[in-house]
């Protein structure tokens, strides 16, 4: 099969690999029909995430058709499925609590120990990411082997739904939704979102659906801010105004009730300390990563809520712990528990409450994936989301 393959820093190519096989009973093989490049893939591309090896197949946002099933799979050949990027067994203590990204089994024993050293406890396996998250071959490929296929994939029965309407159930839509959920939004709230990337935009959209009275999105890319405005959000361009001053004035001196830090990094963890600094320089995020969070902690109202989607991997110094404590803030965070949200969000898509297609700026055949990476990285204002089509 053909698959987008990592060869080194800024060197990805579409290569030929052996087709995946059913290895464990609960596996299924998916023929990929649509797959996206995630902002976090750019950090793999930039070589700032440890544990990515030459020959690894990237990609963790994908969907397709079931072509083979193991004896323990509940899927049927021909079914159309979207696959969560977090791999979860469905039976351990954490999965039982719907904390799927903390699954205790999906990250193979010999790979999970690095995250255990970093964080004290190991995290779950992820598709197409780092060997620290299992080294599972990813979805920017013609075929993917999907473990625990009875738990993760969500079957799309409605043929009227286009791939592009449901593809983002794999990662960024639930990630944005969980970010808003972690902000514990109450009716009448003003919510400020740092970052108008896919996760920030979906978090802003989710906050609106959760009845926030106002959502204010902060970024510096004009086109991305336009997308936010299109969702009915107010915007702040941090190149033009002092963000904290602006938020304070816009909220009559109170400050936003909830803040969400979704600044462009979109890493699924593991960008360790100095790696973070390299990432800042190379990904062109402009602002210091942690400084967005520091700004958010100072901007949020007393007794407010701070939501941090799974974008941090390392450590940060000069963290304003005093603001956190003295203002009595509540923090919600975590790698997305995708499996917990897919059904609910699919229903909202079908009801027309959520549309995610506005985000897609480019569609390319899989064979042109390398160009997609380069442009998505270098032209962030216009290249907001790239969908790849294998077999075209």
């Amino acid at each position, binding site marked *: 099969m053909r698959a987008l393959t990592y060869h080194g820093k800024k060197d990805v190519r579409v290569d030929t690999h052996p087709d995946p096989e059913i*290895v464990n009973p609960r596996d299924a093989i998916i023929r990929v029909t649509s797959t996206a490049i995630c902002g976090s893939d750019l950090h793999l591309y930039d070589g700032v995430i440890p544990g990515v090896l030459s020959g690894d197949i990237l990609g963790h946002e994908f969907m397709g058709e079931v072509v083979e099933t193991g004896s323990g799979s509940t899927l049927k050949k021909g079914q159309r499925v979207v696959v969560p990027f977090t791999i979860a067994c469905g039976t351990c*203590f954490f999965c039982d609590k719907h904390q799927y990204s903390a699954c205790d089994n999906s990250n193979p024993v010999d790979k999970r120990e690095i995250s255990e050293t970093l964080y004290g406890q190991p995290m779950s396996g992820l598709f197409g990411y780092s060997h620290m998250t299992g080294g599972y071959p990813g979805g920017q490929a013609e075929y993917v082997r999907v473990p625990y296929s009875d738990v993760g994939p969500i079957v799309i029965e409605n043929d009227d739904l286009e791939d592009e309407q449901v593809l983002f159930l794999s990662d960024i839509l639930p990630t944005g939704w969980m970010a808003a959920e972690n902000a514990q939004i109450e009716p009448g709230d003003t919510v400020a979102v740092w970052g108008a990337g896919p996760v920030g935009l979906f978090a802003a959209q989710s906050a609106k659906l959760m009845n926030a009275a106002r959502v204010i999105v902060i970024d510096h890319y004009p086109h991305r801010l336009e997308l936010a405005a299109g969702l009915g959000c107010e915007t702040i361009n941090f190149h033009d105004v002092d963000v904290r001053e602006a938020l304070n004035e816009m909220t009559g001196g109170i400050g936003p009730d909830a803040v969400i830090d979704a600044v462009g990094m979109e890493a699924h963890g593991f960008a360790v300390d100095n790696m973070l600094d390299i990432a800042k320089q190379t990904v062109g995020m402009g602002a210091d990563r942690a400084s967005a969070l520091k700004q958010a902690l100072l901007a949020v109202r007393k007794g407010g809520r701070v939501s941090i989607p799974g974008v941090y991997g390392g450590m940060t110094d000069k963290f304003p712990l005093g603001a956190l404590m003295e203002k009595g803030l509540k923090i919600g965070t975590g790698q997305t528990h995708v499996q917990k949200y897919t059904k609910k969000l699919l229903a909202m898509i079908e009801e027309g409450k959520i549309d995610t297609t506005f985000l897609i700026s480019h569609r390319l055949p899989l064979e042109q994936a390398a160009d997609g990476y380069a442009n998505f990285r270098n032209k962030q204002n216009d290249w907001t989301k790239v969908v790849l089509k294998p077999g075209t």
Partner: protein
Amino acid sequence: MKPRAQAAIAVGALAVGLLALTRSSSNPPSGTGGAPGRTARRDRFGRYRVVGKTVTIAKPSRTELFAFWRDFTNLPRFMENLNAVKPVGNGRFEWEIVAPGEGSVTVVTEIASERQGELIAWRSVEGSTIDTEGRVAFRDAPGDRGTQVELVVAYSPPAGTLGVAIAKLLQREPEMQARRDLRRFKALMETGEIPTSNNQLDREKN
């Protein structure tokens, strides 16, 4: 001192060591409080290496976990260093252990003690190449979280050339090996399979 005599003394030391460990779960010795004795910051076991690890397994029941382990022929399914375990009569089992550069070594073990659903302890029979003892304990986890499974292994490599190979094997981070074996056991019990990111079947093993 002759090797034979040395081994005899070592077995004595081991018996004391493991006894201490057995006691520690119900009646913690002073100095380590509620923590297992092996976590103490000193070597209590002479020339024996003792490693141990605990995992919580959500399902199946404690009885079923015990039964699976008690059938020693199941162990190679999750213990990486084991090629095979076969019964050799009299309640004894022959373990075929991978040894780097040596192919494999075999150790015959017998059950040292057993409490139904709670504990299985085994030890190598006299004259074995590797002097080893192990025990696995099964306890109900608090709050209906399943079963806490604790694996403790103690061993002492032999002298001589074979000893060097085995020592190498044992130094292949035995702590890590015990930890990984136990986690594979947990994954196999909870999910029915052992997770892997390999896209192809391991044809050598199957």
